[in-house]
């Protein structure tokens, strides 16, 4: 019973290997660059979903504003890329060459001060992590310190998403408005629009994804992870065991925010633009759907959930646009009502018990299931 020492237990290692096989071998070999780029786009949402596993699944903190952080990360990246794309040579038809096109259309004649530092890639990378973390810290500190939680927190995060969307759309001279920041071309001179670049970016993204999985797993395996679960169940008990519950919630919220921001930044790189339509309420709730479908307690489940829902959306909405929303709504209700642990729960309850005897040999599997502790169970969910 030394599960604390290992980051991944046996079944999780197998899940990790399966995911690596899928993302690094099967998909790149089986799909053309166009489809692979789609997968890359979907995977950026998986970062958000992993964050939600920690924050919502483990910690019970439901944020309906993860789009805000996705957007913050994405906009930081987009600002850097846009500045690079707006060199004087590229923008000589503008009245003020050298500034982004949408600023020129809005009669700005010089770059606003908060855009200046985004000339630097180093600053941009720091900002991708720091800006959402600081924002999440402020929101989290203000709310959790006063013991705002549960439903109230969800509604307030939703309102924040609404506020930010209106602001971005309204301040179009500084943000590109509803069109967002478009036509991003190069990263330090490297054209990110070519097929080859897309291919490389896909692997970069998968690398980030695995780093995120490891980081998330580390948090979950630590005592902090158990405290999050404990907090979800009996917040007062944790508080009266000497923990500052607020600090732990702030941490969970911040780390979910940072994951989301990394996803957003990668999204900008993959897709080539960023717009306020990822910041608002609807995308934020959709990201919660991915997590719920995959299994709110399972890091791997969240990734598969994201991929499956998005694939279904793309293919289903083409063939049956009328039925798609019915399907999505029904799926969501079914997950909440009947399978609160999502796909991961189904897998654990129905598939794995049948799979294990094949993989481990019957006696080993029986022993495993008999002696299985609930901590393992919860972790493998």
């Amino acid at each position: 019973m030394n599960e604390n020492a290992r980051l991944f237990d046996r079944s999780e290692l197998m899940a990790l290997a399966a995911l690596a096989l899928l993302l690094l071998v099967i998909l790149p070999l089986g799909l053309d660059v166009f489809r692979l780029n789609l997968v890359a786009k979907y995977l950026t949402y998986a970062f958000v979903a992993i964050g939600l596993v920690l924050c919502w699944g483990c910690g019970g903190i439901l944020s309906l504003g993860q789009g805000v952080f996705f957007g913050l990360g994405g906009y930081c990246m987009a600002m850097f890329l846009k500045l690079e794309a707006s060199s004087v040579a590229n923008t000589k038809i503008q009245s003020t060459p050298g500034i982004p096109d949408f600023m020129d259309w809005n009669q700005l004649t010089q770059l606003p001060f908060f855009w200046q530092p985004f000339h630097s890639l180093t600053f941009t990378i720091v900002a991708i992590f720091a800006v959402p973390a600081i924002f999440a810290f402020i929101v989290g500190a203000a709310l959790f310190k006063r013991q705002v939680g549960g439903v109230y927190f969800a509604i307030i995060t939703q309102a924040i998403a609404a506020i930010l969307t209106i602001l971005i759309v309204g301040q179009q001279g500084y943000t590109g408005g509803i069109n967002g920041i478009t036509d991003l071309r190069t990263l330090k001179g490297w054209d990110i629009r070519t097929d080859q670049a897309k291919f490389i970016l896909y692997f970069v993204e998968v690398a980030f994804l695995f780093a995120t999985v490891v980081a998330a797993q580390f948090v979950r395996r630590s005592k902090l992870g158990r405290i999050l679960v404990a907090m979800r169940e009996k917040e007062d008990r944790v508080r009266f065991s000497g923990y500052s519950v607020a600090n732990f919630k702030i941490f969970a919220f911040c780390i979910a925010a940072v994951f989301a921001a990394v996803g957003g930044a990668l999204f900008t790189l993959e897709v080539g633009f960023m717009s306020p339509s990822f910041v608002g309420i609807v995308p934020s709730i959709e990201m919660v759907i991915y997590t719920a479908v995959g299994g709110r307690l399972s890091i791997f489940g969240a990734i598969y959930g994201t991929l499956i829902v998005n694939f279904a959306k793309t293919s289903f909405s083409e063939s049956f646009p009328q039925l798609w929303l019915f399907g999505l709504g029904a799926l969501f209700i079914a997950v909440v009502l009947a399978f609160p642990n999502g796909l991961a729960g189904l897998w654990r309850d129905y598939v794995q018990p049948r799979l294990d005897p094949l993989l481990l040999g019957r006696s080993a599997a029986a022993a495993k299931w008999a002696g299985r502790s609930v901590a393992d169970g919860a972790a493998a969910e």
Partner: protein
Amino acid sequence: MSDRNDSYKPWGPLAPSRRKLLAGMAALPALSMLPRPSFAAAPPTSVVNTTGLAVTDSEVTVGILHSVTGTMAISETGSVEAEKLAIEQINAEGGVLGRKIKFIQEDGASDWPTFAEKAKKLLVNDKCAAVMGCWTSASRKAVLPVFEQYNGMLYYPTFYEGLEQSKNVIYTGQEATQQIIAGLDWVSKEKGAKTFYLLGSDYIWPRTSNKIARKHIENHLKTKVVGEEYFPLGHTQFNSVINKIKLTKPDVIYAIIVGGSNVAFYKQLKAAGIDLSKQTLLTISVTEDEIDGIGGENIAGAYACMKYFQSLDNPNNKAFVAAFKKMWGEKTVIGDVTQAAYLGPWLWKLTVEKANSFDIDKIAAASPGVEFKGAPEGYVRIHENHHLWSKTRVGRARPDGQYDVIYETKDLVEPDPFPKGYQ
């Protein structure tokens, strides 16, 4: 070069029964022998298609890319319908360079990245020879880099804010100056308007349009803007601004409100006792489509300035309206954008025939100067900057939801997407 693309479904509409399949195969040669009006034989594919587009000896594939789901579905439905009508009519006349147009329709789902994704699919996977599509500026901005990178051709139907020009886009709607300046000149001259109140939904098109309007009002007409306001998309409470309007008593309310907000705005305007038969209101955003939701009785008396109204009295339009209603139902209405969308396939056909090639580069080069005499709005011509020369008209809303056309510019208005003095 392959003549058959995998995504082709030449048997698509036929039932999978063996007999019908055979019948279909038998019909195919007959198809290509249909009479063609202007040329004796279709030029060989190897000549007209040197870049690997989805063109065979008998067919050419184009894409239709609009939202049929999501919030924008309301607006974009009309465009899809018009484009399908145009394609059907072109096919009935014998197609383009002797090839039938086959279309692949994709749903942008009111989501800009989806538009980019689908645009890429249409260009890369389906090798579409042209794409009719997009509606909002944001969706166009999202797909533009895709069209430029993969060298596709987009026919974009919506009136928009300008500030853009691309080798890979033909703008069949009006850019902002075309739509705005003529209307302001008219209202200034006819109504003697001295003061204007500018309203808009808070995003790029209304803001840019109002910026142009303000420059024109202040610098050219030497009159005054007494207020300018923006509301979030979907805003439904206009009582405060209506009070401000009452306070400032402008000669003209200049409204660029879009979507569901329109309904709230006009209903509340009427309820507040602002009588549009006395108060001049000029809008560039309410087409017949929008009036459907607003209710004709709520907006009757308002003036709209755009290039097309369904009630336009000319033979082209009469035929167009009749064909449209025959295809899509008696109750459908046709707005400015719907008509502009209808122009897309026709302009493309004319350009292809002028260039005698489907190659994008040749089409882009041949586009300037292409004339379409059969346009419902009347004669149009493509400008060097890929926008259309077109007339601008002012209509007055009737309670039945139609407009009476009360003014049109004498000549075609030149498109000027980067207007000097208005930026």
